[in-house]
């Protein structure tokens, strides 16, 4: 049973909501690298295309656009580390907690018995780093619970574990 008084966790503002007694597990540190590769994959073409398009007006405009994109990407990179670090999940006795987000922080409580099915997906970048994303689906369309950047072995283990727990606690609709 959760202790109703919450000042202990409230003081730790930067860590978001959470239970003092819950130990958060984090995705693999490789997730940051995957996100960086994705960011470069987006920023470089955008900078090139923007720069070339700016050349039509003047050479200075083209360089300015490309530079702006690069600066934006660098700023996004700074945020990226915090965003990646914000992901966390915790297995409790009856439910799974997933939290994420820096600007808009979110925390989802997903009872094991409510999980309808569990997906493990991996995009090309994630796969090359040996990572995978775990998605938990419930019958509610609004509950979008996922854990990115798990090592693929760990993801499969967690999936099987959650599936077993879900089966044991399954509740009817």
């Amino acid at each position, binding site marked *: 049973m959760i202790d109703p008084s919450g000042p202990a*966790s*409230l003081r730790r503002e930067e860590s978001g909501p959470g239970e003092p007694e819950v130990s958060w597990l984090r995705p693999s540190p490789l997730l940051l690298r995957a996100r960086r590769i994705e960011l470069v994959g987006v920023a470089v073409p955008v900078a090139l295309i923007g720069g070339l398009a700016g050349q039509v007006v003047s050479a200075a405009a083209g360089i300015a656009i490309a530079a702006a994109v690069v600066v934006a990407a660098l700023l996004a990179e700074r945020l990226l580390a915090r965003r990646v670090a914000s992901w966390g999940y915790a297995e409790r006795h009856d439910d799974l907690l997933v939290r994420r987000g820096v*600007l808009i922080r*979110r*925390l989802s*409580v*997903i009872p094991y018995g409510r999980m309808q099915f569990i997906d493990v997906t991996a995009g090309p970048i994630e796969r090359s780093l040996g990572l995978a994303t775990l998605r938990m689906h419930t019958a*509610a369309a609004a509950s979008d619970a996922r854990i990115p950047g798990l090592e693929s072995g760990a993801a499969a283990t967690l999936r099987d574990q959650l599936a077993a727990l879900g089966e044991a606690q399954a509740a009817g609709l």
Partner: protein
Amino acid sequence: MTGPVAAGPPAGGPLPDRAAPPLARDASWHRLHPLSPLVRAGRQMMSLLVVLIGIAVLNQHQDGNLVADLVVIVAALVGGFVSWLVTRWQIADGVLRIDTGLLRRDSRRFPLSQVQAVDVVQTGLARLLGLAELQLRIAGGDSARGGRLACLKLADAEQLRKQLLALAAVPAGGVPAPATVPDPDGQAASAPAARTAVRTMFRVRAIRLPVAILLTRSGAIGLVVAIAIWLTAQFDGSAGVIAPFLPVALGVAARLWRQFNGEYGTTVALAQDGIRLRSGLVQTTAETIRPGRIQAVRLVEPLIWRALHWCRLEVDVAGARQRNEDRAEGQRLRALIPVGSRAEADLLIAELLGSPPLPSQPPPVRVRWKAPLSYHFLSWNGDDQYVVAARGRGGRPSPAIPLAKAHTIRWGDGPHPRRLSLATVHLDVAGKRVGVKVEDRDSAEALQILRVLPDLARAARSRAR
């Protein structure tokens, strides 16, 4: 799949004896009513016929066209007939099985214990022919692929509905109790006195409904469009100026008509096998929601209705309603009370949910800085069984969900709420139509809610089991 499904029409599949209604226990194969292709084609068929007849009348002297048109009609009819020929259904071991398809056989099984609600739908044409369509609502099944038997004779459909519900009430693997007492309750509405077990709880007033529909937002839009058309026609005598308005006007009119047609004469009754809902002017729907299958109840009070102390009570059941109409229609909640007084709504809520708490806890005063317009309406409340939350947008919807039906519980904030130290807690139920959003609470309170609700929900679930 175990049955002989490889061949098209079953060799030994006996047609149901029309004198005796189909029996659930005999596990034999049944066919749909022979006229069902006509009804299923329904609206499209009718419009096609009208167009084709129109063309045929206009081009009377060109025989070639007429023959081509006839070929189209005959092909459509033959297609419908073949589809009827290869469709059959069976009830065995608590599972409804529907086999269909000529080239690609399609055999679907619907475990009756998972049925959320059973609808008996009659389109206008079906009513003329005395037929009805039976629809099963299964959670998660998208509308196109839910279980539907279209069409059966009305009496058969009613009988079958009763049998399906009786079988659904039996836990999986159990022995079906002789639940279907031979009672003469063919039409509950026409003979309410025949069974004491059926209690009518609410009946919408015939005059109030159209007035109320016109007083909602879409009604107001319709009124504006009508006035615009009228004014334009006044100033500019020619009828041609109306043309640009026509699509909008038709859209609004169709929407209003659909709502009126769907909710006309709504009657809510409580029976042994669930909540019975009947409504409809041209197309009638008789719906039976199994007990304990209500995902959410929502009270809505549109702006203008508040002056008249009217409200609307909607109910959400997992599994989309199957209608041939657009998707947006399937997303709308079914109205238990299309329009009624607050007292009527309270009575029905008390009957369905017991005594859910009233949303009486206002948010902290500083929410004014974030939501100045809706601040006055935001409130929530919860006990160990229900969570209720009211919001300020437009119709002031206040949904109530039983905690036993809650799926995920989500906490969230953003930069602006965080500065005011506010947070929001969502509760999701199955489907995507409704959820409770406990908006803009003090962070400490939101955390408190987040901590307590999962345990309360778990306790409620295990109590419901």
